[in-house]
């Protein structure tokens, strides 16, 4: 019991550390990063203590509310600040603190030459604290605080190198698109409050059953908008690729393992609401299906190592969202895949960082090739991650992704066939683009300038000389740990359904459901498409030579390179109308009214007395606005009478 009451310390420690690092400033430059690592590790230790405590209890007692203080208590408006420790939140806490600590350690070496390393760690700690608030909150209001907090940390970290203006633009883009999602969250919260008089999980979920389906659908859809913003789901996915501007540890922690999965958490946590709103659930599944294909297609065409990984993240989260939309049969697998993905994707991002470290910050995969001989540890750890994401047995991804594909095939009517096929197809495309990425980076011939061999290709000779080398121990150890997770975690947690029964108190009983096709057939089919994808990629990117300059490519390739025109669509749909609106309003205020009446003033200017008359003209134009407004309003009100 005592351990759980201290759960607020998990949040307070990294927060305090962030505060110390920011306030003390340059004075702590020498040891500040170790303080950051320590704070994160302390949280991880606390999380493990809590796990032990919970495991010692019966399944029914594993959900514990920890009341902190009354945040907004007055009359009808009651918001308590409290934490909720249950298997679901604790799973996240363990993932965040454990993977977070590994990435902190990695970053000590990765950011060694950056003068602002201390500030970087302050932001990372801030992120960990905010993310823990998000998952530990026991009400939507507190969740929202964490939600905004991770948004802020993400904004700060994407724009960490803000002296590059395009990086600053990327940060702003992420911020703005997240605000769109936040808007959905806020509306959902208001609607919840208006309906149930509370935004506490317990009260809301208890009352959700038997509530008007229309209200639940509205809330569900608005929560989905929030989830889409944060988890880079269609149609709010555009920011994730640009977010790769941040330092690589950030991409691994925030934009692969933890923050972007907050949307999945939100949907699984809000399960009781979605179960009362089948329409909203269907929309969730559709969004997940679209995004998983969308991301996979983009992933096939990207030559930027990190952006290809980002596209893959988007696609994998699409899988999780799809599973989360399936209801109780999918919740546990969504979270399961989230955990395994957190390990293998973080591992691969760290690998990518290691490659960049060894190759002078180069990210273009067409300028890599044959690196397996130079970075053995990176190569091996990356290979495990690669096998895991492909879903090759017995690696982690197999246990989680296969289950999602199976779950997608459960049901009646057209849905299992459509969604199942999409999930299956996605697995094949994933195999192709991940293998493409892997082979282009580590296999094939060298496509970089090693300084002495005179290459016939002038395009290569003109690039700076590279001396690929393995990264220091501080970077490789976290990669190795994550690789172990990529290999074994999925299998370990699947033995006897340990993980699903652990989550059962929150997500409900999975039960036995028969897919529309037999399970052995599905497994065979999945493995078959994966092998096809892999072989295709091998033929094109490992067995034959890869051009250093990308070819023009087909229409689809070109579209995929430009993120399937998502920026253009956003620009056309949102940005430009917004600009027109702004301009016309400004124009209306300054030109139309002043112009019409000020025109009179200007005529008078010629007659004499310059300034005073002009100003009279302006006031008159204001008075004219007021009168016109008044007349219009009286007309409107009287018209409603008639």
């Amino acid at each position, binding site marked *: 019991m005592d351990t759980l009451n201290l759960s607020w310390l998990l949040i307070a420690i990294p927060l305090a550390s962030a505060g110390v690092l920011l306030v003390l400033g340059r004075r702590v430059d020498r040891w500040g990063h170790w303080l950051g690592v320590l704070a994160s590790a302390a949280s991880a230790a606390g999380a493990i203590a809590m796990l032990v405590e919970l495991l010692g209890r019966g399944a029914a007692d594993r959900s514990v509310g920890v009341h902190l203080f009354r945040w907004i208590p007055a009359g009808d408006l009651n918001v308590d600040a409290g934490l909720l420790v249950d298997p679901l939140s604790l799973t996240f806490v363990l993932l965040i603190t454990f993977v977070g600590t590994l990435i902190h350690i990695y970053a000590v070496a990765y950011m060694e030459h950056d003068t602002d390393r201390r500030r970087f760690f302050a932001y990372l700690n801030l992120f960990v604290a905010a993310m823990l608030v998000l998952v530990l909150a026991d009400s939507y209001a507190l969740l929202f605080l964490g939600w905004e907090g991770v948004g802020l940390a993400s904004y700060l970290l994407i724009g960490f190198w803000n002296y590059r203006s395009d990086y600053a633009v990327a940060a702003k883009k992420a911020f703005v698109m997240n605000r769109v999602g936040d808007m959905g969250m806020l509306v959902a919260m208001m609607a919840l409050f208006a309906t149930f008089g509370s935004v506490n999980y317990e009260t809301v979920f208890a009352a959700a059953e038997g509530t008007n389906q229309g209200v639940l659908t509205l809330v569900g859809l608005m929560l989905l908008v929030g989830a889409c913003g944060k988890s880079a789901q269609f149609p709010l996915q555009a920011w994730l690729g640009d977010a790769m501007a941040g330092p690589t540890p950030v991409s691994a922690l925030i934009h692969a393992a933890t923050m972007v999965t907050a949307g999945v958490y939100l949907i699984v946590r809000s399960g009781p609401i979605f179960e009362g709103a089948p329409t909203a659930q269907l929309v969730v599944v559709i969004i997940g299906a679209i995004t998983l294909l969308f991301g996979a297609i983009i992933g096939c065409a990207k030559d930027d190592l990190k952006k290809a990984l980002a596209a893959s993240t988007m696609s994998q989260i699409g899988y999780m969202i799809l599973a989360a939309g399936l209801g109780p049969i999918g919740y546990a697998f969504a979270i399961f895949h989230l955990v395994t993905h957190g390990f293998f994707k973080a591992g691969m991002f760290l690998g990518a960082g290691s490659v960049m470290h060894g190759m002078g910050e180069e990210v273009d995969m067409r300028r890599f090739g044959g690196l397996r001989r130079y970075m053995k540890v990176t190569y091996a750890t990356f290979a495990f991650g690669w096998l895991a994401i492909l879903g090759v047995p017995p690696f982690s991804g197999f246990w989680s992704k296969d289950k999602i594909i199976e779950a997608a095939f459960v049901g009646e009517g057209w849905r299992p066939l459509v969604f199942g096929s999409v999930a299956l197809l996605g697995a094949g495309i994933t195999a192709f683009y991940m293998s493409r990425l892997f082979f282009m980076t580590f296999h094939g011939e060298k496509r970089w300038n090693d300084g002495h061999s005179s290459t016939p290709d002038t395009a290569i000779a003109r690039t700076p000389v590279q001396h690929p080398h393995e990264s220091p121990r501080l970077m490789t150890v976290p990669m190795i740990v994550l690789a172990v997770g990529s290999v074994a975690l999925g299998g370990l947690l699947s033995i006897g359904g340990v993980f699903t029964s652990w989550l059962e108190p929150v997500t409900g009983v999975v039960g036995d459901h028969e897919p529309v096709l037999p399970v052995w057939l599905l497994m065979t089919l999945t493995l078959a498409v994966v092998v096809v994808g892999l072989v295709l990629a091998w033929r094109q990117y490992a067995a034959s030579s890869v051009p250093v300059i990308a070819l023009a490519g087909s229409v689809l390739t070109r579209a995929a390179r430009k993120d399937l025109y998502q920026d253009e669509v956003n620009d056309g749909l949102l940005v430009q109308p917004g600009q027109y609106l702004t301009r016309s309003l400004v124009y209306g205020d300054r030109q139309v009214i002043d112009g019409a009446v000020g025109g009179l003033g200007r005529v008078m200017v010629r007659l004499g007395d310059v300034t005073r008359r002009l*100003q009279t003209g302006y006031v008159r134009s204001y008075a004219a606005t007021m009168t016109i407004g008044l007349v219009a*309003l009286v007309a409107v009100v009287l018209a*409603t009478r008639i």
Partner: protein
Amino acid sequence: MTAFVPPEIDWAALTPILIVLGTAVLMVLIEAFVPTRVRRAVQTVLAVVALGGALVAVAWRWGVVQSQGGSELVGGALLEDGPALFTQGVLLLLSFAGVLIIADRYQGEDAFAPTGAAIPGSTYEEEARRAGLVQTEVFPLTMFAVGGMLVFPAAGDLLTMFIALEVLSLPLYLLSGLSRRRRLLSQEASLKYFLLGAFSSAFFLMGMALLYGYSGSIRLSEIAKAVPAMAGMDSLLLAGVVLVIVGLLFKVGAVPFHAWVPDVYQGAPTPITGFMAACTKVAAFGALLRFVYVVTPGLTWDLSAFLWGIAILTMVVGTVLAIVQTDMKRTLAYSSIAHAGFVLLGIIALDVRGISSVLFYLLAYGLATIGAFGLVALVRERDAEGNITGEASHLSQWAGLGRRSPVLSVCFALFLLSFAGIPLTAGFIGKFAVFSAAIAGGAWPLVVIAVLASAAAAFFYVRIIVLMFFTEPATTADGRETTVVAGEGLTTVAVLLCAVGTVLLGVLPSPILDLAASAAKFML
């Protein structure tokens, strides 16, 4: 013909208003008899003591109302009830901070012209400046304005409301024209404010006349009683209600009656802008709240299109135009227009929760506004010779301020975050309360727009923060730079008061929310 019966006057209940107005009269006499040297000190002390005393009196009356319920004073011309006392308390608190900022000066110069009547740029003005003349009339004028504001939300009939409106407006017209720097801009602002204010007063009077013609009374409660029986005369009633509301909407700066706001906020002396932006809005919303909640509940269906339209226009126009401003005071002016739109949401809710949420929002908004303008007054330009001149109000001049004056910048960022409605500031709780009241009142489409608008608004608030903390400071070609003056410490006290209030209301809003909720219960 009935015999004349003198109205009962409960002097005890009038104490807050009497203290303020009595002090104002006393201050006029001080202007007449006390020697120039000590006038400023005497007036400052007197203003602070009077406002503090009035605040204590309001607290005392609050206790009385809590135990005995609200009552009608002076034959119903004034009302003493929960919302009135809460609004008066907020007003006195905000004017307390406002007066401190008004009284502050830097190197012996306050924010006001040495002689308001002098022609700008004339030798006479220059001589007055050298002689160190001070226009201490600022203090009685402010006190008269505060007195009018105290009466405004407590008025029980339209005539009292109108007189209160004029008592609070006339001093403000004058004060707007007294800026020490940029005299022409200031006088222009004063004239514009006066003309348009007179124009809107005419609307108010016309509406009052129509309502009298309809109901035969100017008492709010009597008009409300007459509303259900509107056969055949409904256009008189509706036009009257719309005209009165428009007169009040002018004071809060709702679109399309907002045109004066940016010009006047920019031209007026900055301490006055802060005082005006916070207190006038609080008082006018208090009056609007009373009028709408007492008179119009029977007219919801007729007025909803009108009020919804105004609210939407106000939020959208305020936000969008704030984004394109380049001047700090104009940006804050447009942002205050947008905030007026948010408060309108709580008024539209027509619900007990609406009243309490509006009251809370006004306090949160007022604190951040006074604080923000107080800080704007401290950020000045310095020319190549090192002389401190006018305020550096162009946005670009604020670049990099966070490095040179971290405390000031952090406070300013805090107020901006409160404007933006970020959690853990007063603004967030206020927005949350108002929005949920509006949803409970069935106005969820408005809330969607409001949330969109506040999302867009967050952009320009954050832009200013980024400008202050992450941008290199700029020096203009002629060697002018931005610097921060210290003042005599009065502004610092006021700003800290506002900052502490903003954080406290954001973290522990419960006592004040409770207070607002119980205030709403005692609405007469």
